[in-house]
């Protein structure tokens, strides 16, 4: 999936697994950032429903000067409280408010903002004891869930809005086909091992995630506190990524004693652009990639400049991508992918647009904060002529699977080599899935979670 269970080690540690990251301009001169964790949450996962890890440091970073390092960081730490240890129930009655005594297992969290590098910067606790909403259990336990979730949107003194809790999984993808040797059901009649074309299946349908949502005044994020209105203003491009860290040591005590963590935080997961650690970074490097920082991403350049996925397409779909095969065979570096994913698109490539952060190659979402939200968003983003969408940041409705499939198939190579003619199939590539639940139109944007009671897996 986007970055769900994408590396061997983190696939065994779902609480710390970054799954998706979104960053987009929102109304009122704000930027909204949604950092999702815990892949493929089964809504009916009681009695111990999914929750954030009390022993995990969740972070959202912003680079506003293009050096690949964080200039602004928001840190989130969670605390779980069990109010009644003498019952197996998550709730002992309907939960009608965030202070309802019937809610037996609740989480609260703190938000810390760091200006400068995380290791040396100035940290300030913005808030603590903020309530997360309960998970969505069912009509008896969590009636009127939108009200409960809405009460868990907190406005901080600095103007930020925060929400941390369960949400509907908005990333749709046909996992079952893609990881069956790269099959795309719509086109599998053309696959090396052909079967009749078929209807796509959204493998994430009906699942939930846990999301940390943050809406920040734009002026909090830019290098000089401005809110640029000219998209070509270099100050308008910011980089956004998210991570999860665990302390270096964990000691399990004898029965009845809680495990003890100690030592500095060690990053175990990170996420910038979707699908990168999933299908660009090779298996032997995935856990290492998760432990590294965007500023050092030039070490992975070969996987972007000569991506395995582009080579696979020509093998798995013989005869369908002759121009891509020639491009692959030429040894030319995929400068288009390097720009889109590692440096941003410089001015002059796409009319009226840039999200170039400089020469430092760093894998993070690049958002031009001067591009206003689109009145009619195109899920293909810039590829579809909508400058407010991926790879200008990433919106919830952007079809990043289709966009990246097209890009890796060569559809974006003319950005750097105008004489290159993409194969006709490149523009058609998609896994064919859509999300059947529309996102919310307002913060925290991701849809309300599926109820355990109604789950269908």
């Amino acid at each position: 999936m986007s970055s769900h269970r994408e590396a061997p080690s983190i696939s065994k540690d779902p609480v710390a697994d970054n799954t998706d990251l979104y960053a987009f301009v929102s109304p009122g001169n704000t930027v909204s950032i949604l950092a999702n964790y815990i892949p493929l949450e089964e809504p009916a996962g009681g009695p111990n429903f999914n929750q954030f890890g009390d022993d995990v440091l969740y972070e959202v970073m912003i680079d506003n000067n293009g050096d690949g390092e964080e200039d602004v960081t928001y840190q989130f730490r969670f605390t779980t409280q069990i109010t009644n240890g003498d019952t197996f129930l998550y709730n002992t009655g309907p939960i009608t408010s965030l202070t309802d005594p019937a809610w037996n297992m609740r989480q609260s969290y703190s938000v810390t903002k760091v200006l400068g590098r995380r290791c040396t910067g100035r940290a300030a606790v913005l808030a603590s004891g903020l309530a997360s909403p309960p998970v969505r259990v069912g009509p008896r336990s969590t009636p009127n869930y939108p009200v409960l979730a809405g009460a868990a949107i907190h406005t901080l003194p600095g103007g930020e809005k925060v929400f941390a809790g369960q949400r509907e999984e908005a990333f749709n993808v046909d996992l079952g086909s893609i990881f069956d040797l790269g099959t795309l059901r719509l086109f599998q009649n053309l696959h090396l091992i052909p079967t009749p074309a078929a209807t796509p299946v959204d493998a994430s349908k009906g699942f939930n995630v846990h999301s940390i949502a943050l809406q920040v005044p734009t002026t909090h994020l830019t290098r000089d506190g401005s809110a640029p209105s000219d998209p070509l203003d270099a100050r308008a491009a910011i980089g956004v990524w998210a991570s999860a860290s665990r302390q270096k040591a964990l000691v399990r005590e004898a029965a009845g004693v809680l495990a003890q963590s100690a030592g500095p935080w060690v990053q175990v997961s990170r996420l910038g652009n979707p699908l990168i650690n999933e299908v660009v970074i090779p298996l032997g490097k995935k856990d290492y990639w998760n432990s590294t920082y965007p500023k050092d991403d030039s070490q992975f350049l070969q996987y972007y400049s000569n991506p395995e996925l582009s080579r696979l397409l020509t093998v798995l779909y013989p005869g369908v991508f002759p121009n891509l095969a020639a491009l692959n065979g030429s040894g030319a570096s995929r400068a288009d992918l390097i720009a889109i994913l590692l440096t941003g698109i410089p001015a002059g490539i796409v009319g009226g647009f840039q999200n170039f952060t400089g020469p430092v190659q760093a894998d993070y979402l690049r958002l031009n904060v001067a591009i206003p939200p689109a009145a009619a968003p195109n899920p293909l983003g810039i590829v579809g002529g909508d400058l407010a969408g991926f790879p200008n940041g990433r919106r919830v409705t952007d079809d990043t699977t289709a966009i990246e499939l097209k890009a890796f198939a060569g559809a974006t190579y003319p950005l750097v080599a105008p004489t290159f003619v993409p194969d006709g199939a490149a523009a058609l590539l998609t896994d064919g899935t859509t999300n059947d639940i529309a996102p919310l139109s307002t913060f925290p944007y991701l849809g309300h979670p599926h109820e355990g009671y109604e789950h269908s897996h």
Partner: protein
Amino acid sequence: MPNGNGLSRRSFVKRSLAGAAVLGAVAAVPGWLLGRSGGEELPAATNQSDGLGEPIVAYVRDAERGEVVLLQGTREVVRQDRALASHLISCCQEV
């Protein structure tokens, strides 16, 4: 002879404040908590608590060099101290 990596794993020792060996070192040389840290980036959240009063985890990372890593709260201190390493190793061998 034990090698560095294997020995480090076997030498993983945890002592609570009520414990003995590592705490003794703390009491004897209180200034070492300000000694050099590991080479990793430390998120600023680590500065929210100095960890004093929390249990200490110690391990011998490189026995030949006498490199001992001490973890308390969110702090990490790396010491080049052959005597301390030897002491920890002998504690483990007594078990």
